[in-house]
């Protein structure tokens, strides 16, 4: 299990949180995902054998949100 914190673009709508969390929870290998609204960050826990940051970044991008980097 790896824990990562990703910096997202500034989130404005609260429903983005639910969307990003919902998508990640359905992603294989992800065991925990929490979007922090005020700091626009994502705390995610995943199995490195199954998925990686690049895949998650890409998936979040598909939802229409940009990942600015890793913290």
């Amino acid at each position, binding site marked *: 299990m790896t824990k990562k914190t990703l910096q997202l673009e500034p989130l404005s709508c609260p429903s983005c949180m*639910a969307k990003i969390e919902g998508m990640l929870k359905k992603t294989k290998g992800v065991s925990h995902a929490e979007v922090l609204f*005020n700091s626009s960050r994502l705390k995610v826990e995943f199995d490195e054998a199954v998925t990686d940051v690049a895949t998650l970044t890409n998936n979040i991008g598909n939802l229409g949100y940009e990942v600015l980097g890793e913290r």
Partner: protein
Amino acid sequence: MHEKVRSMLRINNNMRIITASIAVVISFILYKILAYHAVTIVMMIITILLSALPAVRKAVGALRYRIIGIDLLVTVAVIGAVVIGEYWEAAAVSYLFLLGGFLEIRTLEKTRASIKTLLNLAPISARVQRDGQSIIVSPEEVRIEELVIVKQGERIAVDGTVIDGSASVDEATITGESLPVEKSFGMSVYSGTVVSSGYIVIKTERIGKDTTFSRILNLVEEAQDSKAKTQKFMEKFASFYTPIILALAVIVGLISQDIRLALTFLVISCPGALVISVPVSIVAGIGNGAHHGVLIKGGEVMEKIGTLKAIAFDKTGTLTEGTPSVVGIKTFGYEEHDLLVIAAAGESLSEHPLAQAIVEEASKRNIVFDKKVSDMDFAMGKGIAFTIDDERYWIGNQAFVSHQQIDTDVLKAYINEEESKGRTVVIVAVKNGVIGAISLADTIRDTTKNTISLLKAAGIRHIAMLTGDNKQAAETIAALAGIDEVRYSMLPDDKVKAIRQIRETYKTVAMVGDGVNDAPSLASADLGFAIGAARSDVAMETADVVLLGDSLTALPFAIHLGKATVRNMKQNIIFALLVVTLLLAGVLFHVVDLSIGMLVHELSVLLVVFNAMRLLRFKTPKIKV
């Protein structure tokens, strides 16, 4: 080919807002002049395409993961409106959604800016002495023990001790206090503070993430997203509200065959104002506090401050200067000098304020106390035992020494006399008996009395003082400070019990301490306030509210700010609930249509954010005491 179309469609946000705004205005004018003429419809379709594209893109993205978000609902509403020929409604809804989102980002950035500006105060470079020359490196590259030179106007990049030069340093980033502090040899300086005049050479002790400044930033960043109970409730509420409204849309649509009505339900089904009502207030409140040296650790802490009725204070270091000094020494068969050598050697291993005062006294008298101390035992809040040159020593209060079967009768009169003056007597003993006594006293801070009055004015009904000190010392300070209830001769455990008792009467109790030896009571109170916490890692970790500066005056501010934030949150919640109810009723009674629904939705979100922004300028109300 696909990529090319994509990049053509990708115009920058500002451009999109501008062109969509022009398009919507032209659409409206055409609509008024020509009604639904072919030209009007074409213009409206252009408006819709321009405005709705980001939402459509997000909706499609979300659908791939089978997630229904507000973008999808708006997209469906817009397509539906176009299908039934309501072009103007479709254009208005998509434009308002775009504009609303744009303004929300801008205004939310303002509420978050307060915390962002803190981040910008992080040092970016350091001048170090390396290999005989001074070079500029990034703060993370400085090595421990390395010498860092800071000149006038520069930001200190490491935590460390001044070993040369002197300067006046603006420590507002660490303490919230704007008056510069004079720093010279042997004094601690902190990363993130600014040398306003002078020149110092610092021996590096902590760098990067370990510095006090970094830890403060970390706390603030964690705090802004630590959820309030009401926030969790609102999120729960929204998670039920949305599916219910969607079901309602389908049912109403099927029964009444009124597609417009069903589409309107879609637009109002995501209660944006409701969900952000709490977090926007909290981020603004925390941001304001952080700029005044007050770190409030999240929403739940804010809520507790809102109901605070009683405060218990630690005495030493909180209500008083916290640096007791030796005011008298009595010896039995020992020279004062020799007694101090032993006492200081043992106490130099303790962090207790009385211990430090004894060490200080020895230093002041230029006494060398480099004896080898072994078999050190600490009895928290009572005393210490240790061995020097095969002789066992006990230093502590009367109970502690008596407990070792050592007769303290010879000191009876002395202790009585000293304690009646509010002084504390520390006994020094060996197995055969008492060899001396050191009496110490502490003075009240000059801000204490005023702070207590301000707290009472802020609605705190009960103020208690919990101290390990004796009755006289406690009552002397309590009388000067204006304390309601005094409890003395307390051990850390007793303080925890006392807090429970006070809680029975007043429900929410805060404990205020300096975090040195009151960590258990800080943790057991509903709210732990640590004062002067920039110096202590433990205090910063344990406390719920961290007062970085050494001044008590930040306490009434913290409580006012907490209460103001809770008020703000409540206003937002009530407003958002009201909007949701009115919208729902409005839609059911055909008063609210698609575009009005969207307008009210977006406006309510903005109003909630604007209301929260008032907290950024919050100052302690002026109260006459």
